[in-house]
């Protein structure tokens, strides 16, 4: 890989972001703990009957994972803005959308992937029937990148703000409703013995669309916010 090429720049961004996460690996565990605590709250509120928990398991896990990821979105560009490297990305000769795509990928890898890995544990806590678990994992694997991508666009719009947490939630949640509907819907369909391929395929189609459009949109949004 020759230095100065676009692929080298992408590799540098990937390496740098991974290293930053690794240096603060304690913080990286927070969303995981948050999701587990949220899920653990439900049996306390609803009672420990397996029948009740089973019924709400997939939806609750989905909401917990989305909320946990929302908490981390806020910081997606924060440190880069503070140390000035975000501006460097914007003025670099390489396509900004591609570089942001790398950052979004690292965000997904470091926050969503651990959440997907603990999903079986969460499912066990809520007595999710074992046959539904693969559907839940696939649905999460398709829905979480969507949240990273769409969230990144909204973060790019709010990047300069001091307190963007609530506003960010307000911007992201309406846009992410379909992911929740299709993802949790697929699990519920599987649980009730219906066909669940259609919602998963819809999610996948939407994901493909977002992978292409969202980095471009995030780049445009970032240029507006930093102008």
């Amino acid at each position, binding site marked *: 890989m020759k230095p100065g090429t676009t692929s080298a720049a992408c590799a540098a961004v990937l390496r740098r972001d991974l290293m930053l996460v690794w240096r603060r690996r304690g913080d990286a565990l927070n969303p995981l703990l948050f999701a587990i605590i949220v899920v653990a709250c439900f049996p306390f509120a609803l009672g420990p009957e397996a029948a009740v928990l089973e019924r709400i398991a997939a939806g609750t896990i989905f909401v917990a994972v989305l909320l946990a990821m929302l908490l981390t979105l806020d910081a997606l560009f924060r440190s880069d803005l503070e140390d000035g490297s975000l501006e460097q990305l914007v003025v670099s000769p390489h396509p900004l959308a591609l570089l942001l795509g790398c950052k979004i990928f690292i965000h997904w890898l470091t926050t969503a992937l651990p959440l997907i890995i603990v999903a079986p544990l969460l499912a066990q806590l809520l007595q999710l029937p074992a046959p539904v678990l693969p559907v839940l994992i696939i649905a999460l694997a398709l829905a979480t990148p969507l949240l990273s991508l769409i969230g990144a666009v909204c973060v790019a719009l709010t990047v*300069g703000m001091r307190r963007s947490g609530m506003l960010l939630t*307000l*911007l992201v*949640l*309406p*846009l992410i*409703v379909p992911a929740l509907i299709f993802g949790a819907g697929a699990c519920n*369909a599987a649980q009730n013995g219906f066909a669940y391929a259609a919602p998963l395929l*819809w999610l996948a189609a939407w994901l493909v669309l977002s992978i292409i459009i969202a980095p471009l949109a995030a780049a445009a*949004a970032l240029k507006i916010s930093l102008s």
Partner: protein
Amino acid sequence: MNSFVLFFHKLGSPPYFYRFAGKWLPWLYAIALVAAAIGFYGALFTAPADYQQGDSFRIMYVHVPCAWMGLFAYLFMAANGFIALVWRIKLSETLAMASAPIGAAFTFITLVTGSLWGKPTWGTWWTWDARLTSELVLLFLYFGVIGLYHAIEDRRQAARAAAFLALIGIVNLPIVHYSVIWWNTLHQGQTVNLIGPSKIAPSMLWPLLTLAFATHVYFFASVFARTRVALLELESGKDWVRALLPATQASHD
């Protein structure tokens, strides 16, 4: 350049638009008021009660025009946002941001009247009907646009960011709508369709169309009024604004 294009170029200049909107504003308010009066007369007096829903169907005459306007205002906002982002026309930024609160108001009316209609029809104040749910998401989108616009200090940058969000929303809106329909059919049996496919009698239809016309005209009146105010604020240092103020005329004399 033909005169029509020339007119739009002139309209893009804030002082020209300020005068243009000021000239039309009283007329628009008057037309909207007269049309609304005629429409309400038709809705409350001449339209016969529905044979299934009785008099509760008269809520339709405020619910449906507002639902249309909620979407229309969003389309208007997104179209102006697009123009503002592509051609960087200041007036379009202002128009887009002026239509957001009105669209939110119409969507809010739609939700509350839908709930008021739902109580006698379905027996509950709220059901997760596909249309109502989509309207709720639309309202959140409006809140997002308005919130983003007010959270950024620089007015023009705020308008561009919020316009961009409106554009993202318009890509997302069909996906939200169809996912909600899919979700709805999965979870519920047939709900009573508020507006059935059956043909609506002309005596019931004309008040609806009149009120839809009235709300459209009112929308433009309100957008013009809000845009005029926003332009005054945005261009407060410019000569044309100063010329409007009484104090300067006194000091020039």
